[in-house]
């Protein structure tokens, strides 16, 4: 005979979950602050720093990626609006589009990497390369995590027929917009400055 136990469930409200995600984002920020500060120190000390985007193709790809991510933030926002309105089909479309854009971003990144490696800039060839692949790689890993999280959020939000659960979308949205903002910082500090 299996034990029947009264198991009061800890049901945290939405604000609590949002706060939790914000703390996570705080920690990720500190991670990238440390990486960016290391980059700054290495760059200042090195002196002759050649930006990875000196060829026109890499820079263009960088710009394209920035546009892709910013668009994905906009499509996410639309998806979230439709979630609030309760429209399941629109949520599926817009968030699905966001997911697609995220994957395109990753593929474009890999392409950019391939082009740079072919041109001789690897992680081992010089410090510029090491920093570039490290920063974009760390960002990319977090994008992969966000893609997995978004997939989960889409499934959770429209999993039960006839309703749209907003909380997963809201929470992953915080992560998604944060990574977009992080990419902009990356793009400016690596390709432009």
């Amino acid at each position, binding site marked *: 005979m299996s034990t029947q*136990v009264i198991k009061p*469930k800890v049901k*945290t409200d939405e604000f609590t979950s949002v*706060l939790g995600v914000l703390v996570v984002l705080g920690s990720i920020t500190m991670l990238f602050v*440390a990486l960016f500060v290391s980059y700054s120190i290495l760059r200042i*000390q090195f002196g002759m720093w050649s930006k990875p985007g000196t060829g026109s193709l890499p820079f263009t790809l960088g710009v394209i990626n920035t546009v892709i991510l910013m668009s994905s933030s906009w499509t996410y926002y639309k998806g979230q609006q439709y979630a609030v309105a309760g429209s399941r089909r629109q949520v599926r479309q817009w968030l699905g589009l966001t997911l697609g854009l995220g994957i395109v971003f990753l593929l474009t990144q890999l392409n950019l990497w391939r082009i740079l490696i072919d041109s001789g800039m690897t992680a*081992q060839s010089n410090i510029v390369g090491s920093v570039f692949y490290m920063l974009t790689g760390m960002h990319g890993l977090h994008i992969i995590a966000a893609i997995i999280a978004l997939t989960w959020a889409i499934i959770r939000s429209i999993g039960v027929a006839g309703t749209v659960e907003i909380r997963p979308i809201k929470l992953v949205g915080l992560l998604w917009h944060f990574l977009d903002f992080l990419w902009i910082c990356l793009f400016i500090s690596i390709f432009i400055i």
Partner: protein
Amino acid sequence: MSEHHEQTFCSKYIFSTDHKVIAKQFLWLGLFFLAFGGFQALLIRWQLAYPEQPLPWYLLGNLFYEGGLMTPDHYNVLFTMHGTIMIFWAITPMLIGAFGNFIIPLQIGAPDMAFPRLNMISFWTMFLASIVLLASYLLPEGAAAGGWTSYPPLSTPVGGIAGEGQTLWTLALTLAGTSTLMGAINYIITVVRMRAPGMTYFKMPLSVWGLWLTSIMNAIFVPIIAAGLILLLLDRTIGTQFFIAGGLATVEGGDPLLYQHVFWIFGHPEVYILILPVWGIVSELLSVFSRKPAFGAKVTAICMCTIVVLSSIVWGHHMYTTGMSPLLGKAFMFLTLLISIPSSIFFLNWLGTLWRGNLHFDPPMLFAMGVIWVFGLGGLTGLYNATVTSDIYLHDTMFVVGHFHYTMAASVLFGGLAAIYFWFPKMFNKKMNPLLGKIHFWVSFIPLNYVFFNMMVTGYAGQHRRLYNPSEYEFLVPISDLNISITTFAIILGFSQLIFAYNFINSIINGEKAEANPWKANTLEWTLEGPIPHGNFATTPTVYNGPHEYSNPAVKDRDWIAQSEPMPT
């Protein structure tokens, strides 16, 4: 609303989301590694006392090394793993993982942590980290051997240590850090969002303050060491040279000093992370066993907050000998000395709590008072390390080792033991043997002071740390006898812990059933009859009083009143 759920053995004990079960899981993990790391310390001490002599039978020499003889490479592994294990696998799981998990929801009147499943994952991540770390011992070239600080280039393949032990070490530490981060998120949010009605921040027990502030620091600073470890991992695996420079470098632009900065920007706050829980717990225990409110409790909480802020800007005091500009050295020195002010304030508050108190010398109180002594001594010796001029001489000597063992090992260990003795009746619903507890205190306190005080003496004499054979230096030969006596007392200290081990395990199995509130303490966890059910409080308590309401004249018949009991009018 409650739901009826079937609980299998797996969901109740192994993959439990109940903070009390997870706390115990962390406690067992921490105690295991405490023993492991402690044993390593004895092996290190043997080598320092009897260099190049085979280990004795009771230190199981033949089991670990050929002919029982430790080589220099073995020695490097020993001090590396001893430090790493004690900090990340003993103290962190015990104080933060176990007591953080156990105390926080109960003392704030919450049913569980804010994110119970995240809590469960945090333990199993730590478990995975443990496996990775222990697996590194099985590698042909041995486990990590670059010191717990793992400075490059020694910790890189270029001019450094061969083999993958250091790589696995880096991975294990990253996993451990992830576990800590998950815990930190939980603790922070739980305290912010799930306090019972009436429990304002300044009505929270000081134990919760210590654990909460520790978690805030963890959330901020652990990602920084993660960054450093990632860069090191890349250097070790894919051939980047972030931290390699000079003649060794094939790629220009790296900087070994960058690692030191990144490491210590985390490393210094880390030592405060390790001791904050103890500060809070000791403040609370002194109050309980003096039957007096914690003297200056609000000020203590604010001092702890001040130290949290200050600790983030003093990391340079670990790097005075790296050739930094004297002005920068002075700046770090000034800020480091500044930290001694809030520390002294709450230290004096501890004394204020004891002053004219109705002292009860139960084992938790003995250990809490022990913390006062060892932390006071350790803190004072910190002043010599903080001052640039004296630190130039003392850096990397056994003086520093004595200092941090007093402040970290002795204080945190005693604090942890005080916590175990205190909360054991609530965690396991059994009583520990108090006589054995008192004996345990004295047979720990005396040898511990002998060992670490004299360690500082050897450091002052010029003995460097991480030395395989101190007597290779002629000027250290006269203190060989001192090293031998330190080792003797260290062995006594080590084996004395068996008294605790016996008491702990025997009490769990055969102990008398404990009453609900054996210490007549006033915080919320003591209002619950054991074993505490899943969900803790049948009805959410309302908090009326502060956390250390002892000997309040308004309460006529006893010297305490629970936080959830309305004050008599």
